């Protein structure tokens, strides 16, 4: 690992001032950043340790019923918090499907949103071509081993996928990211915070320079009774998703009143599915099949990941069936 300077501020203002200095990067759990630094993919010259910044680790209810998850709340604490377990079980389920218990004890909500793709070619500097690591250098995954790569929303610049389970559930739950900078505060939906690769795959998120994630807010919803996170991976646990589905339904007297369905593991960000066709009718097999078919009609598989198209269809049907039960 390259040398770097280290600073440990105690409040957000100091953290922002330190972060504004060239070469600075925030560190909290560090589970992805230190890994990337060991491989030389990330090389900050100053780490700003925000773990001692006060007031960023709480999970609490806001007036109006939204639940606020502080940026420093660990994935482990979030998954077992009563407000999350009872009101947003989909998020608890997604969090527990990710990483391992030891990693979840370190990993934070803010860091989870900022983690980088696990594309082998991004991670391995032995491959020169990676537009995400080195803009303009090409994409080794296009003609490489691309079993884990995107089938939706990719570009010729980058076919990497977002590795987060948490983010898939957050998009389904219409979560908002609370940001702060020296210029003030703003909020942005998680679905807009994360980006598709387009022409600038080096930019994973719409976090502006000098901004810090303060919290993630979950608005109230009626999905708690009918939600399910399904994760399909190469082994039973402790692996990234090949395909995942966050399914949330509001069902009243057997009729679907509202729903959110998001695919993970298939795109550069969680991929929202149009569920208009489910609303106002019972969730029958034909509705499920047509939703799943429409969701994948624009899929563009690569050499090694065509299986993800059919896998995604089946995962959508399964997740929605379980959620409805």
């Amino acid at each position: 690992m390259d040398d770097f300077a280290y600073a440990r501020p105690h409040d957000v203002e100091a953290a922002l001032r330190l972060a504004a200095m060239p070469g600075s990067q925030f560190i909290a759990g560090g589970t992805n950043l230190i890994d990337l630094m060991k491989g030389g993919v990330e090389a900050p010259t100053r780490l700003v340790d925000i773990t001692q910044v006060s007031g960023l680790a709480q999970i609490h209810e806001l007036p109006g019923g939204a639940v606020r998850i502080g940026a420093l709340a660990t994935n482990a604490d979030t998954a077992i918090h009563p407000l999350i377990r009872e009101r947003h079980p989909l998020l608890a389920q997604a969090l527990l499907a990710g990483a391992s218990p030891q990693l979840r004890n370190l990993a934070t909500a803010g860091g989870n949103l900022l983690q980088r793709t696990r594309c082998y070619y991004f991670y391995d500097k032995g491959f020169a071509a990676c537009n995400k690591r080195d803009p303009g250098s090409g994409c080794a995954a296009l003609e490489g081993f691309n079993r884990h790569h995107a089938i939706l929303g990719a570009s010729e610049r980058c076919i990497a996928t977002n590795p987060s389970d948490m983010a898939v559930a957050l998009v389904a739950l219409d979560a908002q990211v609370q940001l702060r900078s020296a210029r003030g505060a703003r909020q942005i939906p998680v679905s807009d915070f994360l980006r598709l690769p387009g022409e600038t795959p080096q930019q994973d998120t719409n976090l502006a320079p000098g901004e810090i994630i303060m919290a993630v807010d979950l608005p109230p919803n009626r999905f708690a009774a009918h939600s399910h996170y399904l994760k399909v991976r190469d082994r039973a646990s402790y692996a990234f998703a090949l395909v995942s589905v966050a399914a949330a339904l509001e069902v009243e007297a057997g009729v679907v009143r509202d729903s959110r369905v998001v695919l993970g593991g298939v795109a550069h960000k969680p991929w929202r599915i149009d569920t208009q066709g489910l609303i106002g009718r019972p969730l029958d097999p034909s509705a499920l099949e047509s939703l799943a078919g429409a969701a994948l009609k624009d899929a563009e598989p690569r050499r090694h990941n065509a299986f993800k198209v059919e896998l995604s269809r089946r995962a959508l049907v399964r997740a929605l069936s379980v959620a409805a039960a």
Partner: protein
Amino acid sequence: MSVSDRRPGTGYSRREFLQSAATVAGAATVPAGLASAASMIAEGSAGGAPTAVAKSLQLQVNGQPHELIAEPRLTLLDALREHLKLTGTKKGCDRGQCGACTVLVNGRRVNSCLSLAVMHENDEITTVEGLQSADGTLHPMQKAFLEHDAFQCGYCTPGQLCSAVALVEEVRKDPGRPKLTDEDIRERMSGNICRCGAYPNIVAAVREVLERG
């Protein structure tokens, strides 16, 4: 990373050099207002770019205070093994994928390879060497691992033990009082890989300690 390396041709030890650099840095290169806002800054300057400065670091490990001189890039794992000579904690993959380096930080299991030592100055760290009681009596989990033959080569065992001890604590603290099946135990131990495949016996050992309450 050794602190006693001589820098060729200078006659300075690395430690002396870094200490004098730190003194200069404290006055000259930390922007006004930052030194007071940050409780701790390890930073020097070379041609305008920030550089790391090794500093004295206090770690509380297995109930004992330790002091070491470390650069910020020192991982908790390397601090334990290379500086404190607590080699019970193992380096497997060094990338957070195997769990061999699992230790307890304030009672919670973490991968020490993916955490910086400098970030743990206020924490209570427990390694496999600290699981037994002061009189040398093995921890119930250590006894259960012996009774159930829950290892073969033993390389992953220190991490498995720390992880299993934390697992039991997590269950005890859970207000839902979950009753774990063998499948649940496997899921909750999935961050610890065993190349010898001792999993059935590890599960049996964990189950026994859980059932004993």
